[in-house]
């Protein structure tokens, strides 16, 4: 605790009559000076590192041509609106598939952790599903669903590549997320379930009020990983002809033979990920604060 007080007169004392000793004041001044020095050093070392890296890149023999090919302002300006237009497709897919994946993944995870012999076929089915769709390469899954399903000529089944692509994404990612949830459920100590049951909660209530809340909270970081990964993979629906952010960049690259649009698309995706990460960090912190009502230990 630093003393943050106006020290205008000698008689300025706290209510409890405490006057910080000269030694304490000196100590705090010294600490402040040290921390200022550390910050300054960190800044200088960062600047030097940055400058050295910059010089290495800029003095590379191929730099002028690389700059022209990857960092061309004219193509960046042309690409940005088209990339953003494509990104809207990525975002919509992320929101809809993300919600579907969370629900489906949770259902599969619960099916896998059900107890009782009567649920055996359900457990086997859920296990088979996760094994298959986690192992199947996403791009092949998309191929089969986006280009194969319409070939069946089924009445009433859509041929829209975006809807089909979204379905394929949901199939693969719910298998990933189901495993994350299952790991979370199984990581909750059995004593929690035992305690809940001893309080008279049914199996279902114990799962809903005691086990799942703890499991989900623990699983936020890996879940976010899967969501960020899903966000980037939404672009793969372009296999069916839909134009997403990356494909929009592709179109300009193919016409101009200049790679700048790819860089623009990459940066846009990164920019989309950062707020998502901060938001989940905030949610997790809030949950932790609520849980630790007595203050952090």
């Amino acid at each position, binding site marked *: 605790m630093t003393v943050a007080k106006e020290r205008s007169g000698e008689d300025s004392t706290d209510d409890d009559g405490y006057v910080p000793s000269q030694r304490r004041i000196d100590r705090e001044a010294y600490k402040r000076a040290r921390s200022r020095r550390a910050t300054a050093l960190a800044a200088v070392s960062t600047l030097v590192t940055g400058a050295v890296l910059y010089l290495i890149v800029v003095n590379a023999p191929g730099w002028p041509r690389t700059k022209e090919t990857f960092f061309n302002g004219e193509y960046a300006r042309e690409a940005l609106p088209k990339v953003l237009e494509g990104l809207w497709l990525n975002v919509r897919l992320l929101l809809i598939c993300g919600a579907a994946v969370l629900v489906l993944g949770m259902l599969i995870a619960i099916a896998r952790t059900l107890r009782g012999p009567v649920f055996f076929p359900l457990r086997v089915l859920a296990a088979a599903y996760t094994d298959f769709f986690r192992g199947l390469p996403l791009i092949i899954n998309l191929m089969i669903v986006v280009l194969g399903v319409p070939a069946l000529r089924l009445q009433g089944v859509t041929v829209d590549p975006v809807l089909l692509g979204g379905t394929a994404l949901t199939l693969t990612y719910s298998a990933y997320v189901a495993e994350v949830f299952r790991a979370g459920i199984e990581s909750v100590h059995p004593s929690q379930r035992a305690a809940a049951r001893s309080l008279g909660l049914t199996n279902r209530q114990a799962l809903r009020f005691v086990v799942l809340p703890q499991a989900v909270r623990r699983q936020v970081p890996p879940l976010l990983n899967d969501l960020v990964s899903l966000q980037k993979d939404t672009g793969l629906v372009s296999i069916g002809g839909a134009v997403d952010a990356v*494909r929009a960049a592709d179109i300009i690259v193919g*016409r101009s033979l200049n790679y700048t649009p790819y860089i623009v698309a990459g940066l846009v995706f990164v920019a989309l990920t950062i707020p998502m990460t901060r938001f989940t960090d905030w949610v997790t912190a809030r949950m932790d604060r609520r849980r630790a009502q007595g203050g952090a230990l």
Partner: protein
Amino acid sequence: MHPAPRALRRAVAATTIALLATAVGCAPQPEEKASDTSSGSAAGACAKGKLATRTSGKLTIATDEPAYEPWFKDDKPANGKGFESAVAYAVARQLGYDKSAVVWQSVPFNKAFAPGEKTFDFDINQVSISAERKKAVDFSSGYYDVRQAVIALKGTRAAKATSVADLKGLKLGAQVGTTSLDYIDDVVKPTRDAAVYAKNDQAKSALKNGQVDAVVVDLPTAFYITAAEVTDARIVGQFENQGGTPEQFGLVLDKGSALTSCVTDAVDTLRENGTLAKLEQQWLSDAVDAPVLK
């Protein structure tokens, strides 16, 4: 925790900076190719079989995989069958490299124009010449005048189109990075966004599945698709050239390549002595019976 003695830490920091600085100074410089880089085609610059190629005495030619008909046959560029394979060998012969001195290499289209050291001497991959692309690569002169065509499944509304205006309300598809796509955007200007595919194979599937009404490809490909691959499709028609200048395929070389002028001379010679026309007759169907969409 014992902090390292200050002197030592300083020494380490100084060394690091010094090392990095040397790294900057000693970045590898590209080796100057000992070749006669005179522009124009002095007899010395294009000495038969003695060009400044990647591997001396060999001519390395690149194309994408899969290599599509009718440009290549059986996905084997080295067999000399298919129009582009035949043209590549004709150009090689013209430059003084016989069949055994030609090495084929599989290079994706997107990689063929990346800056930096190229692994091939030239790339032959149905690449249309454009002023914009010339900023990134060198082109030889054109070896084929290409026209773009529309194909659709027989009996559909798209198959009955007789003008560009008839195509406006349709869902059209094309391969990414092709001039076919530019024709959709710039000439047809459809009311619905074009579907864009990574490869022509996916565009063909989408056409069969009814996910697009029509696909735009270059005319020889259109003939091949409708004759051999999607037999219930027909060529609706071909586009007129944009801006009156014929669109041409050219061989792709590294920007500033020493071979550009020699390869261009070779292609020009083959055009003048009728070799290109003969190969066209041999490998590409006659394009006259495709109606022109006004």
